[in-house]
């Protein structure tokens, strides 16, 4: 089995792929819209990608609060139930 990637790495990979940004830009403090050039629909798509990758469901009112890379990592760490 492939070595398990950390949540942070998986989140970053998704962001790099979806937004076409450089991995170095994807720091925990980076804001999706202001720093990574996402538009509002990109942020919806990102959340969909996170939901799929981590098999979690992010309610709309929570999704709105996920504005930085760090917000997402924290949210997933707190809400991840699968994968023991």
């Amino acid at each position, binding site marked *: 089995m492939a070595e398990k990637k950390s949540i942070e790495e998986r989140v970053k990979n998704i962001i790099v792929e979806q937004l076409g940004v450089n991995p170095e830009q994807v720091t925990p403090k980076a804001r999706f819209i202001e720093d990574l050039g996402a538009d509002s629909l990109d942020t919806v798509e990102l959340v*969909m990608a996170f939901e799929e990758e981590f098999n979690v469901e992010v309610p709309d009112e929570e999704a709105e609060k996920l504005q930085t890379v760090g917000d997402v990592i924290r949210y997933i760490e707190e809400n991840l139930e699968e994968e023991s």
Partner: protein
Amino acid sequence: MSLKDKVALITGASRGIGKAIAMELALMGSSIAFISKNPLQVEQTEKMLQNLGVRTKGYALDISEISQLKKTIDDILKEFGQIDFLINNAGKTEDRLLLRMSEADWDSVMNINLKASFFMIKFVGKHFLSRNYGKIINISSISGLTGIPGQANYAASKAGLIGLTKTVAKELGPRGITCNAICPGFIETDMTQHLPLERKEKILKEIPLGRFGKAEEVAKLAVFLLGPGGDYITGQCFIIDGGLLA
């Protein structure tokens, strides 16, 4: 024209305009998923569409049960793999003078005509977004444009659909998703069958083409918009009324 690799999701496809849209799309080769309320009608429509040789599955559900809608759409995506077209057609009237209209009259019409359409778009819209493609048609009504006595609830719901249509066109347009509304006038279906005779005659006098429209005529307009002819059309409302509002 062939729409062979397309999957359409139609609400209220077991009678009237929705059924005609399903048939026209099936003739173009599209696969048809549909949601209607009455299980028996769903079964019959499914058989009829199967006989046209297309892939089809009907889901018996009251679309005002929003909590069930998402699950049904997930099931449809599992079954068909994709959705290309969403046609929000299911609708009802509950006509009454507004001074006698109850909260239940208002809510049931709003919930089915407007609220369910919103949630259909919301749930299917995410799928459209992930594919950067999708065409949405909302079946509104001339009632939503001019108002018709006795239809305060219905007219408001249909006018609401037009506002919804335009907003969806603007929000999702940047991702190649289109959304248009069709506003039929008086069309021969169960919905208009029970109009009192004198009322019907009075309306007929006001329609320049001198007759009610056929469900197939509305369906052909929908199919045009869903086909390549509609690729650069979004946020619009198409009146098909035999000239009534001319």
